[in-house]
C-alpha cells in the first residue's frame, strides 16, 4: 500500500475521480496551475488539463457556478480555500445548492462537492480559524463530512464525489502535511454515512469529529471508553451513537467549534430525547464562545487541549 500524508491522500482521491468520472471538474482559487495553497491539488492540472482550473477570487461565482454546472450533468469539485471564506457566498450553498432537488420536486439535482479546510493553527488570525460545520448542519439538503486520518481523507472525498447530493468535505489544515500512513486505495467507493469506532470501552461514550479527535484519542488512551469519531455529520450515525450511550450511560462530546449552537448540543439533546438515563451529567468540551486570537499562546488557551480533555474523560468515567 502507498504511504500518503493527509494532503497526498486527498490528492489521490481527486486524481482517481478525475480519472474515473469524466463529468468531474476541479476548480477554485489557485487550485489549477499552482496546485492549491495547501498543495492538495498538486499535479492534477498537468494530468487533466482544462478540467482542473483556476478561478477569480469570487466565492459566489465559484460556488454558484458549481451548482449550475451540477444541474447540467457535471460533477464539479470546488475548493473554498478557508471555510471562513464560505461566509461571503453562503447564499449559493444555503439558498441555492440545498434547494435544487427539494424545491424542484426532484426534477433537478446538484451533485457537487465542496472541499474546504478549517480550524486553528499557530498564528492564524480570527478570520482563518473558525469551525463552521454547524452552519451547514443547520441546512437540510447538504451532506457534511470531516475526515481526520489519511485513509478518511481519501475515502470520504471519494464517497462525497460519488454522492448525488451537494456535499461539503471539511478538512483541517493542521493535518495536511503531517505523518504519512498507508492508505488502501483499491477499495470500492464506500457509501456515505457511518462512523469510526476508534476505541472500545464500557465506562463512557466519547463522540468527536475533525482534527480534535486526535487529541481525544491521546486523552482517552488509558480509559475504558468508547471513542466514536463521527466522520459523517450528515447523515449522522444516530443509531450507533445512541446504542453506545445506552450501554455506557455516560456521554462526552468534544468539538473544536464554539459551544453555543454547536453540533455537540444536538448530540446531547438527541440522547436526552431518546430517554437514555445517564449516570452522570453529559459533558460538552468545545471552544468557549470567543473570537480566536492570533497569538499562539492565546489561541491555545481557547481550544480544548489534550490535558483538559483527558481530565474531563477521566472524571466522567468515574462519576455517578
Amino acid at each position: 500500500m502507498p504511504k500518503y500524508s493527509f494532503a497526498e491522500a486527498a490528492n489521490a482521491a481527486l486524481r482517481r475521480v478525475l480519472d474515473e468520472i469524466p463529468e468531474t471538474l476541479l476548480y477554485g482559487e489557485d487550485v489549477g496551475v499552482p496546485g492549491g495553497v495547501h498543495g492538495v491539488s498538486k499535479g492534477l492540472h498537468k494530468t487533466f488539463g482544462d478540467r482542473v482550473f483556476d478561478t477569480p477570487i469570487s466565492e459566489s461565482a465559484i460556488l454558484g457556478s458549481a451548482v449550475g454546472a451540477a444541474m447540467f450533468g457535471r460533477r464539479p469539485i470546488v475548493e473554498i480555500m478557508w471555510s471562513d471564506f464560505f461566509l461571503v457566498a453562503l447564499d449559493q450553498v444555503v439558498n441555492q445548492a440545498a434547494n435544487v432537488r427539494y424545491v424542484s420536486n426532484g426534477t433537478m439535482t446538484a451533485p457537487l462537492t465542496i472541499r474546504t479546510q478549517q480550524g486553528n493553527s499557530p498564528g492564524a488570525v480570527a478570520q482563518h480559524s473558525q469551525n463552521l460545520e454547524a452552519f451547514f448542519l443547520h441546512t437540510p439538503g447538504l451532506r457534511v463530512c470531516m475526515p481526520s486520518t489519511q485513509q478518511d481523507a481519501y475515502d470520504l472525498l471519494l464517497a462525497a464525489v460519488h454522492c448525488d447530493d451537494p456535499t461539503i468535505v471539511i478538512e483541517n489544515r493542521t493535518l495536511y502535511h503531517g505523518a504519512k500512513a498507508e492508505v488502501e486505495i483499491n477499495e470500492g467507493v464506500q457509501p456515505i454515512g457511518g462512523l469510526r469506532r476508534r476505541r472500545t470501552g464500557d465506562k463512557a461514550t466519547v463522540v468527536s469529529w475533525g482534527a480534535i479527535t486526535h487529541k481525544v484519542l491521546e486523552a482517552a488512551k488509558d480509559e475504558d471508553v468508547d471513542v466514536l469519531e463521527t466522520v459523517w455529520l450528515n447523515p449522522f450515525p444516530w443509531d450507533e451513537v445512541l446504542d453506545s450511550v445506552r450501554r455506557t450511560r455516560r456521554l462526552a462530546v468534544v468539538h473544536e467549534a464554539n459551544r453555543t449552537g454547536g453540533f455537540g448540543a444536538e448530540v446531547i439533546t438527541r440522547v436526552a430525547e431518546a430517554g437514555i438515563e445517564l449516570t452522570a451529567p453529559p459533558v460538552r468540551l468545545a471552544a468557549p464562545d470567543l473570537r480566536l486570537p492570533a497569538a499562539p499562546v492565546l489561541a491555545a488557551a481557547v481550544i480544548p487541549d489534550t490535558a483538559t480533555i483527558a481530565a474531563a474523560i477521566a472524571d466522567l468515567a468515574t462519576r455517578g
Partner: protein
Amino acid sequence: MSTLLDDLHQMWRSRLLEEKIRDLRLAGEIQGSVHLSIGQEAGPVGACSVLGPDDALFATYRGHNWAVARGVPVEGILAELLGRETGVNGGRGGSAYFSDVAHGFHGENSIVGAGAPLAVGAALAGKYDGSNRVALTVFGDGAMNQGAVHESMNFAAALDLPVIFVCENNGWSELTPIDDMVRNPILAERARAYGMLGERIDGNDPAVVRDRVGDAIEAAREGGGPALLELMTQRLVGHYIGDAEQYRRPGELEAAKEKEPIAVAKRKLAAAGVPQNQIDDAEARAREEIDAAAATAQAAPLADPSTVKEHLYA
C-alpha cells in the same frame, strides 16, 4: 407583421396570466408574496424566441413571464401558485421560486441576483458536454448592485463563457428608484469594465430584443464570451401585490402606459393595416387559454402533505 402579431399573442398570454394570478391572489386563493411583471412582456417574448432547447434560462422572482415565454404550460404555473399537486414543482416552488426543467426553465430565484452564478455554471457545463449551450440569466436593475452578479460577469468574461446577462431595467429597485442608487444610470456601461459587450436596448419591442439578444447568443456560441444587455422597460404594477406604490413620481405611470409593449404593438399593427379583428383575436385566444388553464388548475387536488419529506436527498 405576422411576427408582431404572434408576439402580441405571446405577450397577451403573459399579461393575462399575470392578471389572473393577481385576481386569484386578491381573492385569497393564491397566498403569499407575488411579484408581477405587467408591462415587461416584450423582453421575455423576444429573448426566449432565440433560445434553443438545450440553452439554460435562469430568471428572478419576477419570472412568470419568462417561464411562459420559455414554453412552460400556464396550467402548471397556475397550479404551482395555487399549491396544487399538478403544479410544475408540486407546490414546493411557489410564485417566486418555481422551475420547469422539462421546458428548459431552470428556475426563478427569490434572492436578488443569485441566478447569475448558476447561469455561469450552466455555460461552464456546456464547455465540457458538447452541447454548445448558451445560458441566459435575467435580473432587474436592482440586482446590478449585487456582488454575485459582478462576480459572475467577470468569471464568465475571464473564462470566455457563453452567458447572456439580461438586465430588465424597469427603473425600480423594488421600491427605490435605480437613479438614486447609482451614479451612472446607464447600467450597460459596466460591461466594458469586464471586457464584454454591453448594450442598452428598447426592452418594449420584442423584435429589437430578439435581434440584439440573438446576436449576443450567436457571438457567445462562437466563443465570443458573455454579453450584458440592458432592456429598458417599465413595471405597470407594484413590486408586489399590496404595494401602495407611494414612490411613483407624478405622471410616470401614465407615460409608462404609453410605452408599454402591448399598447405599442397594437398601435403598430393597426398603423400597418392589420385588420382589427386579427389584433383582437391575439388577446381573445390568450384569454380563452388562461381561463381554461385556471379552471383546470383550481380543480386539481392540493399538494399531498404525505409527500412533504420526499426529494430532499438522493
